[in-house]
């Protein structure tokens, strides 16, 4: 049934800019551990007579975010007032860039190659927060005035999975560029997902619903998939899809209607003359552009070429520091070593038991040495993992990887004489006698038993491959 239909998705994302202070007041922007209304200036409270003073840092971060979206930076932009009554909006209007946004057309390329156009991104201030109790509500204005950019995509997305991929990529772009800290739990990025469904090939889009305020990637995918099925069922039953705002309930896995949008709201937008027009110079923008770091798509291309598995790349790209480090490893070594380091990152460093490590601690040189030692048989795979974690211990910062491995007593025994002595000891043991006989009778399984004894005797340091060769030679 669903095969007949195609869904079209456009996403709006509110990104909290990582500034120290608010967009128009010098008040602390980070109220995570603060009492309600602890970070509120007279202006944030909309005291009569207060005026906005634009925070330049927010402008810089908006530009960084915009450049990450390959967006056109508009040298002239302006703030407008968007009016509505609600207790979380103290002045009765939100300062936003309705007519002239700072960032114009851009584009995000998803890991699967699909492209999503960016319509624009504009600067605006956040509202406060309302908490409802029985017959009253309390207002917390800590978040009122927090700088945001709202990124508005074109309706270029056609699957729930792509909706998630787009959101994930946006998160990477915003955190890599430094525009946002990316703390989704605290609502640093909030997504509104607009979904419409029409028969495949139809000229016109269906009626769209907007699922508001989602702050997890998985929920975006689930909510979009749910809406698709809901729209299809309505259409198949000959019922109309209502143009409305809906909320996503993660527990029930359903969306529910919140507010009908049959008639468009009129927010009476017009220019806010309290904030002078924002006039940027090309030099200013160029200076910011010159300081932009590498972005996920840059690393993706390079790592793919080096032969790192796609799944490994995507996991790594969620960690800018590791992506940067792997890029450096690739520069000083070869593809083989790079793939090894990538696998160590994803398989070991990112394992749950190693959470909390400072991913900056180990340099590309040490990591390359580590992978090379494993490659050369100097470290077993278990030992390699142990040394990797040790490299991230701050006490080991200055040590060479080999010295560290030696200190940890993990170097493999590759010396034939030493290895031979151990093997001789094992073979002399009574426990080995029947195994030796078995091997001579062609029973391969018994080799493993003897290698096990050799490893035990060497306290795990024997190179199992070399030990096997020497063993077979001795038994003849």
């Amino acid at each position, binding site marked *: 049934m669903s095969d007949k239909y195609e869904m079209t998705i456009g996403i709006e994302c509110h990104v909290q800019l990582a500034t120290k202070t608010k967009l128009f007041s010098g008040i602390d922007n980070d109220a995570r551990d603060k009492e309600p209304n602890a970070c509120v200036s007279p202006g944030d409270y909309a005291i009569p007579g207060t*005026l906005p003073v*634009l925070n330049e840092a927010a402008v810089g971060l908006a530009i960084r975010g915009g450049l990450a979206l390959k967006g056109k930076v508009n040298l002239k932009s302006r703030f407008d007032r968007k009016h509505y009554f609600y207790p979380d909006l*103290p002045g009765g209007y939100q300062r936003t860039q309705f007519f002239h946004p700072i960032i114009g057309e851009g584009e995000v390329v998803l890991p699967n190659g699909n492209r999503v156009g960016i319509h624009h991104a504009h600067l605006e201030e956040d509202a406060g927060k309302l908490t409802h109790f029985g017959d009253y509500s309390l207002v917390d204005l800590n978040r009122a005035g927090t700088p945001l950019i709202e990124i508005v995509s074109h309706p270029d997305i056609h699957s729930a999975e792509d909706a998630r991929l787009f959101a994930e990529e946006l998160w990477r772009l915003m955190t890599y560029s430094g525009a946002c800290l990316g703390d989704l739990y605290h609502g640093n990025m909030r997504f509104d997902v607009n979904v419409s469904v029409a028969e495949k090939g139809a000229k016109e889009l269906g009626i769209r619903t907007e699922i508001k305020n989602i702050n997890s990637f998985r929920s975006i995918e689930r909510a979009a998939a749910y809406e698709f099925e809901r729209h299809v069922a309505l259409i198949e039953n000959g019922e109309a899809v209502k143009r409305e705002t809906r909320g996503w309930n993660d527990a029930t896995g359903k969306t529910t209607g919140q507010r009908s949008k049959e008639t468009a709201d009129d927010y009476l937008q017009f220019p806010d003359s309290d904030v002078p027009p924002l006039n940027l110079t090309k030099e200013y923008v160029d200076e910011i552009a010159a300081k932009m770091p590498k972005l996920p798509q840059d690393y993706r291309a390079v790592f793919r070429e080096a032969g790192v598995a796609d799944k490994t790349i995507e996991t790594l790209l969620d960690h800018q520091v590791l992506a940067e480090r792997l890029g450096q490893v690739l520069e000083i070594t070869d593809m083989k070593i790079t793939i090894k380091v990538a696998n160590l990152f994803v398989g070991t460093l990112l394992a749950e038991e190693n959470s909390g490590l400072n991913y900056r601690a180990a340099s590309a040189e040490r990591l390359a040495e580590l992978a090379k030692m494993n490659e050369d048989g100097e470290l077993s795979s278990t030992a390699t993992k142990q040394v990797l974690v040790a490299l991230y211990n701050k006490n080991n910062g200055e040590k060479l990887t080999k010295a560290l491995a030696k200190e940890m007593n993990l170097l493999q025994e590759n010396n034939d004489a030493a290895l031979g002595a151990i093997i001789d000891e094992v073979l002399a043991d009574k426990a080995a006698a029947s195994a030796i006989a078995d091997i001579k009778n062609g029973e391969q399984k018994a080799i493993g038993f003897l290698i096990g004894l050799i490893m035990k005797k060497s306290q795990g340091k024997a190179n199992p491959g070399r030990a096997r060769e020497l063993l077979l030679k001795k038994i003849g």
Partner: protein
Amino acid sequence: MKYALDSGIQKKGDKVDAYEVQKTLEGYHAPITATVVKRLEEAGAELAQHAGYEANMVAVEKGMATFALNTDVGGEVMAAAENGLYGLRPSYGAISRYGMIASASSMDAIGVTAKTPEDIREALMLIAGPDGMDSTVFDDLATGAKSGSMRVRELELDEVRVKTAEVAHMVIRAAETASSYYRYDGIRFGHRAKDAKSLKDLYNKSRAEGLTEDSKKWILFGTYVLLGENIERCLIKAQKVRTMIIEALEKEMVTTEVLSGSDLGVIAALAGLPVVITPEGKQYIGKRKSDLALLQFVADMKEAK
């Protein structure tokens, strides 16, 4: 030096009752001090009275204050002449608006009245200049031609032009005032209606009870000119008129520094230009930021008489 201060300009702790929003600010005491007040306090000036603009002009006339600071949105300061005083509506951005109860943000200004242009000049020197609290304030008040070389010409305005300017002023004023008054909602300060049944009811009642009839007219008109397609027909058209006025005045002042005439208050407010009125009712508009030179020009005229 003593000064009289408009009740719409705040001094921390003082009651605020700007006339437009009187009831909604009942029982409200200013939590902030206006930049102009702060600067005058730092200069050792003494607040003679904190009252309405008529009372303030009388105070200056009677010598109880050297000058008065009053809010001005469309040339209200021109009433100075009726009290035998000089009045200046400064260039937009000459004096910080921080602490002044806003109505039409793009035209709000603090006007100065005094017995002599020199007194106004002295007040201006104390209160003007950049302010970290108001980003529309400029920092080069001293620019503009010296008065010695200033030429004056009569600005001839027919009735249609005057009326057109007045309508444009009224439309912009209404839109901006309606916007500025959104904050008088009874949620955080000022008058809050009792026995509201819902949030919407609380807003409706608090504003219906708190705002004056005059304010309500501005709000209704301002909302009308912003609503739907009206914004094109009304506000945007008014802004075009405003731009035309600014350009026309710039053209007029290519060969002259000062324009004289009547009914200049509204035009100066729209264009953001400084305007001075003399006790005889003569009005002079100068170029933007030429406030000090314009005052000097008026002072020289007085000497010449």
